């Protein structure tokens, strides 16, 4: 067993054993579901909106080259510097070069999963730069030196008491455990950081090919400040973020808010089309946009699963996933967790190392039902399983299924198998859930149903 899968199983066992945390996460996500359903209900037709969103992203992704060329031409025409990075290392090098050239000391960041993907903070800190995450949830997990728990709600696994203790320890300032007080501590700490920061770093939610804009969605205003105050702005974004038209946002912005957080609209949806322009009061003198491939083109080459590039990172599939709800975000060990993470990680980081994520699913389909852009998520998990088994089958598993096929296709063998099962029942019962029990994976926590002497087919035959 690879270390990836054994680590996953170890963490999953630990997390599913934490009943308090499981209940805490479940309550939070139930709350999300209630508000999401209310907002979905306000749409005249959520289903038509989903279909249109899916078709729009289909159009964008299936003409990605022309859309990217248009986006970049428009961005460059207004003074934005566009960089292309084939992989994480190139992206880090590009960003390091910019901050070094600018003789920057401190970098303020708003939330960007792409920066987690390329492990940017680590690379910057290693070179002596100060990096501050400004999104409250990201700030909290940064203080704890851990990865975000959830792509939209990074600190949802922590209680207010834990955050109070963290602030007390790291900031020496935590008047109480009230979310209001704690948020205000972060606000105070951050204010001067914005003003002092040399570089503002952001991600991007949508890139508009038609007008050359990058749209950023946020609730707190931290991305707005990040894009307003520092002299240099850097935006790192996956190449798949394109939308064809400016007006497409009229549909995508409320859908992202509804699917992602159960809000009618996120508080700030801001479209940037350049650095500070002539006649404007403020804004960065320079804007660098880094377009990241990092094996997205490999996903693009898989026509069957190409639609997973439509993902708008709303997190809806995580929120409804019973696996995610019970094992939590850190168990996956990936940048993108939950169903979409289980679909794309094998493409981004290697099928054999990450195929276990596709196996760790009951294929219930709640994710596919929740996805606002109709990614066929749970069927892609099946396809990953097929691809993994085809390219590197497990000897024993394949043998087992071959034998099962022989038994299933021959009524006499099938009858015999049932009889053996019935006869060995008392023995199985005696060794139940012990190390000797071949069905231990089942019987450790569950009883097996008693097998009746007469099977259905026995009954059918006797009846005739």
């Amino acid at each position, binding site marked *: 067993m690879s270390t990836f899968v054994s680590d996953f*199983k170890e963490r*999953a066992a630990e997390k*599913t*054993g934490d009943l308090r945390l499981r209940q805490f996460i*479940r309550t939070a996500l*139930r709350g999300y*579901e209630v508000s999401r359903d209310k907002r979905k209900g306000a749409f005249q037709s959520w289903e038509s909106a989903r279909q249109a969103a899916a078709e729009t992203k289909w159009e964008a992704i299936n003409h990605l080259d022309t859309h990217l060329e248009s986006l970049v031409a428009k961005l460059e025409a207004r003074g934005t510097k566009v960089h292309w990075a084939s992989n994480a290392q190139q992206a880090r090098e590009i960003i390091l070069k910019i901050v070094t050239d600018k003789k920057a000391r401190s970098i303020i960041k708003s939330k960007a999963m792409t920066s987690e993907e390329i492990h940017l903070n680590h690379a910057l800190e290693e070179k002596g730069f100060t990096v501050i995450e400004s999104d409250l949830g990201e700030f909290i997990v940064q203080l704890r030196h851990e990865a975000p728990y959830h792509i939209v709600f990074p600190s949802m696994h922590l209680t207010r008491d834990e955050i109070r203790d963290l602030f007390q320890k790291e900031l020496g300032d935590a008047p109480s455990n009230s979310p209001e007080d704690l948020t205000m501590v972060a606000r105070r700490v951050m204010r001067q950081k914005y003003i002092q920061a040399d570089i503002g770093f952001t991600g991007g939610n949508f890139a508009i090919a038609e007008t050359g804009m990058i749209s950023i969605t946020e609730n707190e205003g931290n991305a707005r400040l990040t894009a307003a105050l520092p002299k240099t702005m850097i935006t790192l974004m996956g190449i798949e973020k394109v939308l064809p038209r400016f007006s497409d946002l009229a549909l995508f912005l409320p859908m992202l808010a509804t699917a992602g957080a159960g809000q009618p609209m996120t508080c700030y949806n801001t479209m940037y089309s350049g650095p500070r322009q002539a006649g404007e009061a403020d804004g960065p003198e320079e804007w660098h946009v880094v377009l990241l491939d990092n094996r997205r083109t490999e996903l693009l080459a898989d026509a069957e699963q190409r639609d997973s590039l439509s993902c708008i990172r709303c997190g809806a599939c995580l929120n409804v996933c*019973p*696996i995610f*709800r*019970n*094992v939590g975000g850190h168990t996956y060990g990936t940048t993108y967790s939950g169903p979409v993470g289980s679909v794309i990680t094998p493409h981004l980081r290697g099928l054999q190392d990450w195929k276990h994520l596709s*196996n*760790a*699913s*009951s*294929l*219930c*389909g*709640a994710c*596919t*039902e929740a996805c606002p852009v109709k990614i066929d998520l749970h069927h892609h998990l*099946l396809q990953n*399983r*097929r*691809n*993994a*088994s*085809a390219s590197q*089958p497990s000897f024993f*598993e*394949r043998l087992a*299924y*071959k034998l*099962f*096929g022989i038994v*299933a*296709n021959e*009524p006499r063998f*099938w009858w015999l198998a*049932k009889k053996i*099962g019935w006869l060995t029942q008392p023995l199985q019962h005696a060794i139940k859930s012990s190390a000797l029990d071949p*069905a231990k*994976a*089942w019987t*450790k*926590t*569950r*009883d*097996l*149903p008693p*097998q*009746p002497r*007469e*099977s*259905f*087919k026995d*009954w*059918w*035959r006797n009846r005739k």
Partner: protein
Amino acid sequence: MTVTLFIPCFVDALFPRAGISMVEVLERLGHKVICPEEIACCGQPPFNSGYWDEARTIAAPIVEKLHDAEVVVIGSGSCGAMIKKFYLELFAGTRHEAMAKQLSERTWEFSEFLVRKLGVTDLGAKFPHKITYHDGCHGLRELNIKLSPRALLGKVAGLELVEMKEDVCCGFGGTFAAKFPMISTAMGEVKIGNAVETGAEYIVSGDSSCLMHIQGLLSRQGKPLKTIHLAEVLNQR
């Protein structure tokens, strides 16, 4: 009508009462039931594990044998989804493709067959108990089965249906239950928690496989809730 009844492997071996009830219900409605003995399994275990060649070995004889049947009825949303939906993918581009398509069109999940094909909801059943209904995910999301079981249960004398607060997977998931037992068990605990909250005596479902998992947990945890297949409820007089 001649109904070809497809009995899933675990119903045959472990839950014969569910299969017998389906035969009796269908016969009482005046249909001729046949049940090909040489069919044991739909091939879903190897299919879901990614072993499509092995799945085809099991499924190809079924497609050959059943594609000409008048109707095929199957007492499981999960095996139903396998035949109606996933056979199309499994056999795409093979010589069985057209047969798989025809079989898909002729195959009905048990509750859907009664309600949508036959237009029957009242089977004269009597089951004076408080129950909750578990939707198997394959039935619910691959085949959109939601209303038919409820239409049938609505006509059962004495039965009170109390819905659970969320449509959530029970955690069975086939080989998933054995490959990731800790996750599967955690999901099952959530499910039985929801079921217990309803105050029901029985969890009813159209999928014996989900019930096997749920009952296994209930029994291990010493919970008094019982599980029963929809067909058995409909066959109670």
